[in-house]
């Protein structure tokens, strides 16, 4: 079994939800606020919310609000289709969201100032991380460690990692490719769809994929 020179270091990641001052009551206000709120707020309502929405139609909280509170289903679908996996910086994601809303507002100028059923409250995820003291040098150890992560820590390593790395990848794939020289496995993990499965389901998929390679 391949052994890495530099071990993978597992991190315990947790976050608090900080409540922002910005509130949007209309689609026009949503676009304005999106240009101004901190990066952490965009992150929270898109990347972070992937962790929490198993029951609502969309994982993006912007999309969910546009549908449920503004009754603008077409725009909601467009916002939901913005794939956070395509972005390695919040700036790019922010621009995509604003563009979608402003184009919609330009096509339907009479709707953009309709007051929503309830306001959108902007929040921000404040992350706190600690090294867990757990390390992996092989695929088996990596899979073992992944099983011992909380869901928030799994999110940190697999989803929010792309913003930290500024790469369209995750911590596991990045390490597997660079330390174990297994680019195919790295790419396979990267293709796992974290939009449509729960984090528990995602963990199972990651573990199964890695153990499958370890058994080769």
């Amino acid at each position: 079994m391949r052994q890495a020179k530099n071990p993978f270091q597992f991190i315990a990641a947790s976050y608090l939800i900080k409540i922002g001052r910005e509130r949007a009551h209309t689609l026009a206000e949503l676009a304005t606020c999106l240009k101004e709120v901190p990066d952490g707020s965009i992150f929270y309502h898109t990347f972070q919310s992937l962790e929490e929405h198993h029951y609502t139609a969309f994982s993006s909280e912007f999309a969910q609000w546009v549908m449920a509170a503004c009754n603008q289903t077409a725009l909601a679908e467009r916002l939901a289709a913005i794939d956070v996996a395509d972005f390695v910086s919040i700036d790019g994601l922010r621009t995509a969201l604003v563009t979608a809303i402003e184009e919609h507002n330009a096509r339907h100028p009479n709707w953009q100032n309709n007051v929503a059923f309830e306001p959108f409250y902007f929040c921000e995820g404040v992350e706190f991380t600690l090294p867990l003291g757990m390390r992996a040098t092989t695929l088996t150890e990596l899979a073992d460690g992944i099983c011992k992560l909380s869901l928030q820590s799994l999110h940190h390593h697999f989803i929010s990692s792309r913003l930290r790395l500024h790469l369209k990848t995750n911590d596991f794939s990045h390490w597997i490719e660079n330390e174990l020289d297994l680019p195919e496995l790295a790419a396979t993990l990267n293709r796992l769809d974290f939009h449509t499965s729960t984090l528990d389901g995602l963990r199972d998929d990651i573990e199964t994929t890695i153990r499958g390679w370890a058994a080769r």
Partner: protein
Amino acid sequence: MTTEASPGRALHLDDYAAVVGQPEVDEIRAIAHYLRGKRVQMVNSTAVGGGVAEILARLIPLMEEVGVPTRWEVMTGGSEFFAVTKAFHNALHGAPYDGVKEWFDEFLATNEENQRRIKLDADYVVIHDPQPVAMIRSRGVPRNHWIWRCHIDLSQPNPDVWSFLRPFVERYDASLFSSPEFTQGLSIPQYQFAPTIDPLADKNKELEPEYVQSVFDRFGIDTKRPIVTQISRFDRLKDPVGVIKAYQIVRKYADCQLVLAGGSASDDPEGNAVLLEAREAAGNDPDIHLLNLPPWSYLEINALQRGSTIMVQKSLREGFGLTVTEALWKKKPVIAGAVGGILLQVLHKITGMLVHSVEGCAYQIRYLLANPEMAKRMGENGHEHVKENFLLTANLKRYLILFSILSRSTKG
């Protein structure tokens, strides 16, 4: 007084691994280790009754277990003080307020007496709700961290009361609210801290069916017919009379019984009056059961929730609504007023039904009684929703993260 907070068999953090998973428990211990040597004090206004006391009674033993010594201090005050704070509470929820200046004086004097009695010198002091909020005046040097935990909905406060309290609140380092909707655009950081329940507490743990039956037998409730239940203290904001009216509409169409079960907290002087109003509204209907339970009736409440067909929480205003959380955890469909923290819990048509009127409440009771499969699915969704968001271990973790973040900011 300082309250001992370990009712019943002492539970350990590892007991929760079966519910939330061992990784979650291990990471809580890792964060707590980061805080080793730090002390916490929690201050509220009642040791028994009401959601805050319940949360603290479960949370504090776990804080102690993970190595973060935590003292629970209960402020004391006379009946005049608690009448004032009850009026404040209602006014902060938006109810009319006709207080006089002497009420503010009474409030400040009682806070000052408690400041003298309780030395708040821990590394982190968490003050719960408005009653002890002015104790921030005892903050000394070197500065420790003071946090205000607001359990109520401040979205539409009476301006007289809020303008009196706000200067005290803004002297804190951080504030904690159950929902973004409840906030007031404070100058200090505001964090979302959804309240939580303890899945292993007497009030929420699994019960033997025989015990559940025995509780219903004891109260003379027929378990062969549908049972609609609201559990909450007798408080006008919980609208017990509205629930009775809704039930009276339903009775024209469906054979069922209504249970209104609750008690009163030591800081709520209106409980008896509201119970009398409910008795008057119920009249002589033998299928309406008004149960005024003592505050330690955890197992009885658990049994009433588990044995009911539908749970109602028709609040007119609500901080969070822990009884909703408890009902969802027990896989019960919930029909609830669309107010406050209930909106975070009852996802309309997914975990329950949101209502805005007596008539709406009656309609949804009829609907769910007639559609038990849908009611069952909602109950199952509700259980998962609580598991992911509103269990005690999440609250413990949030406090530990908050303290860690405040420590890091100080270390700078």
